């Protein structure tokens, strides 16, 4: 599998009729099993890019093509949204099996897959809870399990941890990195938080804004499995420094990170 983002541009119409260029000539290839993170401050078009890759927004120019597919009916993408968008009328388990129902998977197989995923994301005992009964971190886990359930070629995540407090965010990063390492799933991960991108990704795409474009791509050569202590290693700090200096090239476009 190869996900090829081929020269994507996107413009929106402003209320006064002028065009606003959200993305300009974005090209990027994501390989099988790769974790690609996109960083850039709010408004640089990274969410727009994710929505185009997900097929939830038409591009003005260019195409997204998935090549060398091994299976004909494996879904191309699924999404973990920033606001999660869990179905409030469905239990944790029913949220997770939603995509499987749409794929007409037998209910026995649905149960089995739900059980695997509930174990993978650590939600045992909460299968029958409704979203409003869950903590922020458990909602995250449910949303991740729901997106993983359909086994997409590429899993898209749009700043999924931005609403969590710092401690739970750290836990979820470690959790996600473990899920990546155990499943071999390909990821495209959007964040504005550079340490998170470096911690999780094989490659970090730095985007600049107005119009949104790729400023540079940094390969992260850190050992896996990634553990919390890697965040204080000199290599990790060097990557942060490097991406920060990429970012500092345009100081007016990037504020301080939380």
């Amino acid at each position, binding site marked *: 599998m190869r996900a090829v983002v081929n020269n994507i541009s996107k413009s929106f119409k402003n209320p006064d009729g002028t065009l606003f260029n959200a993305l300009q000539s974005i090209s990027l290839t994501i390989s099988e099993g790769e974790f690609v993170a996109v960083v850039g401050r709010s408004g640089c078009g990274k969410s727009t890019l994710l929505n185009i890759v997900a097929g939830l927004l038409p591009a003005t120019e260019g195409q997204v093509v998935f090549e060398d597919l091994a299976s004909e009916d494996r*879904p191309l993408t699924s*999404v973990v*949204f920033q606001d999660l968008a*869990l179905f409030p*009328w469905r*239990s944790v388990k029913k949220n997770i099996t*939603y*995509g499987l129902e749409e794929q007409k998977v037998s209910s026995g197989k649905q149960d089995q897959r739900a059980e695997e995923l509930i174990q993978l994301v650590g939600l045992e005992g909460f299968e029958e809870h409704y979203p409003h009964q869950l903590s922020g971190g458990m909602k995250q886990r449910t949303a991740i399990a729901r*997106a993983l359930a*359909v086994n997409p070629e590429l899993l898209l995540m749009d700043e999924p941890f931005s609403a969590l407090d710092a401690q739970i965010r750290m836990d979820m990063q470690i959790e996600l990195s473990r899920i990546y390492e155990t499943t071999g799933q390909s990821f495209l991960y959007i964040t504005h938080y550079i340490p998170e991108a470096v911690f999780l990704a094989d490659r970090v795409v730095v985007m600049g804004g107005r119009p949104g474009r790729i400023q540079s791509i940094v390969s992260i050569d850190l050992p896996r499995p990634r553990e919390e202590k890697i965040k204080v290693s000199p290599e990790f700090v060097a990557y942060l420094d490097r991406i920060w200096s990429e970012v500092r090239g345009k100081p007016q476009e990037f504020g301080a990170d939380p």
Partner: protein
Amino acid sequence: MTLNRRVVKDKTGFLIRHPNSYVSWISVIVVLGLWETVGRLGLVPPLFLPSFSAVLASGYEMVVNGEIFAHLSASLWRIGWGFFLGAGLGILTGIGVGYFQLADDAVRPLVAATYPIPKIAILPLLILWLGIGEGSKVVVIMLGVFFPVVINVRAGVRNVDPLLIKAAISLGSGPFNVIRKVILPMTLPMIFAGLKLGVGIALLLVVTAEMIAADKGIGFLILSSADLMQTTRLLFGIMVLSGLGISFAWILDRLERILLPWRE
């Protein structure tokens, strides 16, 4: 040193609400007791206000000889069909106009023009078309229930979080499943809001229609009792209506709790 010592007091005490369920009972008993006393002491002629016990006795008689059930079943039959048809049509139309812009543009002016008409004003026309029998009564109730349901359901559909629809699409849902599996459950609370309004209107319309043209039903019972100056029977009819209203609200409430266990 302690001269200027002041302790911070909770200033919100008066806002705390303690539930007093026994007060509710007492208030009902006091009102019924007053009513009974006024009747027993003969302060008001029984023609105008018979005592509570006299009303109950007359009601008991109607229960024993089965008269009340004939009236009740006639009214319930009309409400049942009118409500069922009006609610069903209202839900379908509401989802249709909420989801499809074309349908909304076509239907909105018609609803805007017909909604303000007091439905009972249409009854004579319906009698002309459908005869004096059950059809005209069922249809007038149906119309009365249809409007609040359609307006609420449309609003509910339009307020469904677009992100949930996106989430469903990203997990493989097509247009039909988006309606069935996302819009319908998300609209259920608003459907119930519409049904609760509709049930009150149905009760109002059935009584009015029965007062205009019927030989059975609670509305007929009330009007004919008044004509015969049988105030006890009249008041019992009104009490039955109160009971009906409470029962309908209770049933809808239970149904809502069963169908919407996910609500906070």
